[in-house]
């Protein structure tokens, strides 16, 4: 046991790592995706909505209103947005945001977060569409509301995540956390019962 040779250990480690990397690469590879080039397109079409024209209620998606999200509860009154109007909000490094309710997903130190408020005129299902993949915590009266439906957005329209929430009338706070980018574009629209 005394004749321990660090070089040997290093060799073993390297070999181990190399074969592991190769394996994990091969292992993750599903058979049907041999062609990397095509891969993306076919996958995008798999479960995602087909690329249709922008629905009229979302027409502002192309020209969002720019705001700064709130970093603290006190700042929230300056970050009130309207439903049916697309918004482009700047966010903050996740660790610097003081949330009104602790989010279920904190996001890494390299991710971004922020909060906004909006008013719901009539109770019903409301849909939040975003151009990235944040965790969305919907809060009313200090309580988080679970989403009831989760869809993928039409990528050709720059939409990634679509979440439906059952909301009552009144002021709501939306916390965006674990966002990969420093800005987020989003729109809140009521969902008519037919959709």
């Amino acid at each position: 046991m005394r004749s321990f040779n660090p070089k040997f250990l290093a060799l073993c480690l390297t070999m181990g790592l190399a074969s592991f990397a190769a394996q994990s690469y091969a292992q993750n590879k599903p058979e049907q995706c041999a062609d990397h080039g095509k891969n993306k397109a076919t996958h995008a079409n798999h479960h995602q909505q087909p690329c249709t024209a922008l629905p009229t209620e979302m027409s502002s998606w192309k020209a969002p209103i720019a705001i700064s999200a709130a970093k603290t509860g006190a700042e929230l009154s300056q970050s009130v947005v309207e439903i049916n109007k697309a918004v482009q909000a700047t966010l903050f490094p996740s660790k610097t945001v003081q949330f009104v309710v602790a989010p279920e997903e904190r996001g890494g130190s390299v991710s971004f977060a922020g909060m906004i408020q909006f008013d719901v005129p009539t109770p019903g299902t409301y849909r939040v569409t975003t151009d990235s993949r944040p965790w969305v915590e919907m809060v009313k009266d200090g309580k988080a509301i679970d989403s009831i439906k989760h869809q993928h957005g039409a990528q050709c329209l720059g939409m990634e995540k679509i979440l439906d929430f059952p909301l009552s009338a009144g002021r709501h706070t939306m916390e965006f956390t674990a966002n990969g980018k420093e800005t987020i574009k989003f729109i809140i629209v009521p969902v008519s019962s037919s959709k």
Partner: protein
Amino acid sequence: MIKIKTLIFTFAISCSAVFSYTVIAKSEESNQTTVADQVKLGRYLFYDADMSKDGSMSCATCHRQKHAFTDGNPTHPGVNNDQGVYNVPTLANIGQFQTFTWTEQHVHTLEKQALMPVTGTVPVEMGMFKNEKEIEKRIASNACYVRLFNSAFPDAQGNKVTMENITKAIASFERTLISDHSIWDTKQGYTPEMQQGEKIFFGKGQCATCHTPPLFTDQKFYKVNKDASKAMRTPTLRNIALTAPYFHDGSLDTLKEAIENHDPHLTKVPQLSEQELNQVIAFLNSLTDKQFISDPKFSLPAEPCE
């Protein structure tokens, strides 16, 4: 003279016994505390989105406690929005598994498995292929983490914040994810319908030949219907009511559909009547472990490691 010799001898023996006892006890104790420290560290890492490229995704993003560490979606896209390929499996009792992932990929340790979502490229999940150093850097820049690595890996020489130790700690945490307090285990609230279902499950239905307790999987690979392109590892049925949608691609929404998609010729699962199906489903519902999904030891730590 003899008496003194015996005395000294006995004394020496008992001394060495006491000595070796304390040494063994000490090392066992320190082993246990090391494992406990690894579990603590692993839990922080499991919930830390710095393990992914843009900080948007942790292990827990796909493995959510309230869904018994699945996510309620057919598949889950990665950081680049690449579509997922397989349904997220539960992590209940994962420490007792000998083979990991849906298909036979010869992944036999949790440490090895933990790297797959981090560095996998088809599909990209957490997006850190060839970028493991960046994870180490992010973690090592946090003093709280450095302290935890020091106590979790006291014997490691040099830099302790390595991918190897990161996956070791995560694996130690995963081994604590034990689910053995379902209604079926405790028999509290075990209804007659569930009991009828149990009879079918272990008898006529043939279910237990593959979904063998206590894990409710034999960890072997089967094609259960003609649509299956590959053999899939028998999934555990613990907490199955919480882990919809079902099958390797998440294509089935209900337990009824899942059962009906076992081809009688390929699996020996017979046609079951509507009543029998309902009874089996009642039995499957008895495998839900409420304690497991609400245990604070498994949840997002109240405060981040800071």
